[in-house]
């Protein structure tokens, strides 16, 4: 099960990276988000999985796809100047980061200890529990997040409107 969702996630992300057509890349991205939601379910966290589906696969990807269609730039434009060295260097950087990180995770004693200590599946996260923690300990943060969403909305309208 874990392997299936991990493969959906990684192949979706890889498809996004390699796809030339931007709309198809966006749809690959949705597949990756669905895979991540599946991983969250396996992590005994259905609340986060539902949020992932609603916010990422729903809201953010619809926003991105709408903008892609509005801008009518479905294909990548021809490069102004080719930077072969920079491209190889960046590919090398990403690969080195991935390889180094995986090596670190596999060799880490602390991660191994945490993995064996928490091997038993904990009770699934419930919305009730999350709500209690959120409103008991993080009420101010919750309010600030609401204010920030409002500010972002006003900012987005102000940036896209031609003349207010």
């Amino acid at each position, binding site marked *: 099960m874990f392997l299936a969702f991990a493969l959906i996630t990684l192949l979706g992300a890889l498809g996004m*990276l390699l796809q030339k057509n931007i709309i198809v890349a966006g749809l690959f991205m949705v597949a990756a988000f669905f895979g991540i939601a599946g991983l969250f379910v396996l992590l005994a966290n259905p*609340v986060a999985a539902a949020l992932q589906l609603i916010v990422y696969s729903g809201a953010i990807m619809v926003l991105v796809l709408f903008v892609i269609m509005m801008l009518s730039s479905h294909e990548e434009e021809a490069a102004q100047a080719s930077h072969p060295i920079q491209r190889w260097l960046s590919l090398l950087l990403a690969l080195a980061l991935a390889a180094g990180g995986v090596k670190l*995770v596999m060799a880490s004693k602390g991660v191994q200890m945490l993995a064996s200590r928490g091997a038993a599946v904990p009770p699934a996260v419930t919305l009730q529990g999350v709500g209690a923690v959120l409103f008991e300990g993080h009420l101010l943060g919750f309010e600030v997040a609401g204010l920030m969403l409002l500010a972002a909305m006003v900012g987005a309208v102000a940036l896209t409107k031609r003349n207010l």
Partner: protein
Amino acid sequence: MTGMDAILHGGLQGYLVVALLLFAIGLAAVLLRRTMLMQFMGVELMLNAANVALLAFARFRGGDLQATVFYLFIIAVAACEAAVGLALIIGLYRHRDTTDSDRTASLKQ
């Protein structure tokens, strides 16, 4: 579970490796693609990789609820970032008629 076994059967290491690979793919998308929308999607991918790692650590610490609350805040910030980022891309497209990040090196007119 250790080594390959943990990766194949969903141990903590497996989730962390998935998160790392996801982050690397997102980074590659930001660095290799020139369309700003693709770079934006790469950033979203990197953010999601961080979320996977966060919730994986929470599960292996006995289902910590604090992490889900943090995830809620991260998602709120990501929504703000998506709205403002896409608005900026639309604004730039209006002025320059392009979404190529090489051609839009400056935000000024």
